């Protein structure tokens, strides 16, 4: 699944589609950046802060779930933080990359469905995520998600280059 970069000059159907296309693009870059890494490299950190590529895959799926399902839709989620343990990112040894990628793509489909069924100006439903604050609009949520993905992909760009010198967009 390779998604071309959403150039500002390419035509898109709507503002919502711009956000969705960026998210599709970043997920495809993420998968490209982890492609070919051994189990060892996937679960090992190349940085003092200690995060590993496989943890990033799980983290981004959870970020998407927290913002759109737990947040915007206001749904109850029994454990909104499965990517975290003792204030650090966490992936159990028995969690496989294949499963985590499948989960990420399923979350992506959920995101698309939610975005396509609401207007960008619609506010989220109150729920635990907002902790009493006024829920954000869908547009603001998507904006946040796009820039959070972008920054993490920036992390993965550098991590992959540190691992084996592989570069590219």
């Amino acid at each position, binding site marked *: 699944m390779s998604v071309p970069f*959403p*150039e*500002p*000059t390419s035509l*898109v159907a709507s*503002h919502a589609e*711009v*956000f969705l296309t*960026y998210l599709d693009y970043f997920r495809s870059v993420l998968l490209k950046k982890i492609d070919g890494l051994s189990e060892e490299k996937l679960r090992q950190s190349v*940085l*003092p*802060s200690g995060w590993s590529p496989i943890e990033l895959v799980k983290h981004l799926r959870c970020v998407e779930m927290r913002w759109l399902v737990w947040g915007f839709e206001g749904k109850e989620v029994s454990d909104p933080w499965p990517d975290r343990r003792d204030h650090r990112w966490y992936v159990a040894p028995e969690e496989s990359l294949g499963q985590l990628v499948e989960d990420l793509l399923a979350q992506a489909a959920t995101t698309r469905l939610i975005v396509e069924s609401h207007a960008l100006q619609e506010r989220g439903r109150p729920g635990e995520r907002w902790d009493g604050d006024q829920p954000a609009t869908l*547009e*603001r949520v998507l*904006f946040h998600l*796009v*820039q*959070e*993905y*972008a*920054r*993490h*992909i*920036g*992390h*993965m*760009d*550098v*991590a992959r*280059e*540190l691992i084996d*010198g592989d*570069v590219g967009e």
Partner: protein
Amino acid sequence: MSNVWSAGEDPRTYGNPVGEKATYQEYLANYRLTIEMKCSGLDAEQLAERSVPPSTLSLLGLIRHLAQMENHWFQRVLQGRTDPPRLYKREDDPDWDFAGATPDPVVVDDALATWKGEIAKAEEWFDTVKEGDLGREISFDAGTVSTRDVLVHVIEEYARHAGHADLLRECIDGRTGE
């Protein structure tokens, strides 16, 4: 994590901007400040350090690249000012923004002043843009771009480069966060 900025030092705002233009303005302002924070307290040697080898990325190279990027989108594309030469591009070296990032205080001062100059020009122009004009299509190259799509692009480009800056800084002196 260690070495994070204390809350009192963080110059960024986390308001609740109302409307599309205000949202773009807040994200832009915060990312520009984030990059500046990532560079703060470092000398020319550290700013030019290729701290994540084999990459040729450096914080100084990023500043030069971001100056070029601001100039490209805000001046050349959105305002059609294509006469002045591209910043930090050389015919013999398309990656001069990164390649020319040498540990020389003159190069550092030039990069910071150029980047901040481009930011000031971009802000001055954006202040004049009306909320209702964000969807306006502008001719560029063979096609068109909307102001909105350019702004979203600039912000995601800043965000991805902030991700690069995070790790460059972590590998220079261990500082993370922000």
